[in-house]
């Protein structure tokens, strides 16, 4: 029960953190994670360089991580 409660609060938190990303960071992560695309495929879909996608995915995830204060 507490897990579902935590999940609902968590959902709000993730949504808010995703909103803090740039459009390119968010789209890169959505395509890579939810869409299941490889980063070269993401680069082709978004029309940007390979290095750009790698950086956006990493920067976006780091931003979400910091926003949600994962401390490892």
């Amino acid at each position, binding site marked *: 029960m507490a897990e579902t409660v935590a*999940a609902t*609060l968590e959902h*709000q938190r993730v949504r808010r953190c995703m909103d803090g990303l740039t459009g390119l960071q968010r789209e890169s992560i959505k395509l890579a*994670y939810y869409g299941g695309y490889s980063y070269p495929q993401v680069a082709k879909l978004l029309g940007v360089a390979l290095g750009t996608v790698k950086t956006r995915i990493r920067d976006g995830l780091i931003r979400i991580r910091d926003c949600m*204060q994962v*401390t490892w």
Partner: protein
Amino acid sequence: MRDDLHVLTGSYVLDAVSEAEREEFERHLHHCPTCEAEVRGLRETAARLALACAMTAPARMEQQVLAATYRTRQLPPLPAGRSRRERRRVQAKRALPRRLAVLAAAASMAAAVALGITQLTAQHQLDQARATSIARVVTAPDAHVETARTSAGGSVTVVTSAALREAVVSTSGMASLPSSRVYQVWVMSPSGARSAGLMRGSSLLAAARPGDRIGITVEPAGGTARPTTTPVAVLPV
């Protein structure tokens, strides 16, 4: 070479790399503690993204997730007389809450531990009752969420149900206090500031209604009758 590989941490945890790249990167991880540490944190982050995907559902679906988790409610029988395609579509929607529940349970274990809402204490019964009350507010159809950063670092989230006249106050990442100090939660209304209790763990239930405000202050251990310091956060209910 190391710089090139370091930038792959994000794509690696999202499984967006080729098989060959994955193997190469894992070999790299063996002798790059920086990357290894970053991968651990980003992996936890990615696990929580799974939750956002699963829970993009209307309030009614959230109710079904709750029911699926507890197996306390029978789903109504499939409507008779519909076309086979219609029934399949309805069945697909039925199947979804179970998948959501599994995803939510799996991904939220980390969240539950991170938020401190777990039952790893001796007062299990009390926690269960409190967890039920919290669940009722958070999944109420009129649940309203406010979030703010605090001046003690971290953030506070308040989920309120006007119908229930209750709010769940949840904090994350706030600075640890010395044992002589404690975070105290207040409900502020036109008639003054009323203590809602001390912030033990990371969530608290408070009687509150729209128009009230929630404030958090740092007080001496044991709490006070009235706030004595400037709030680290104030947010509307």
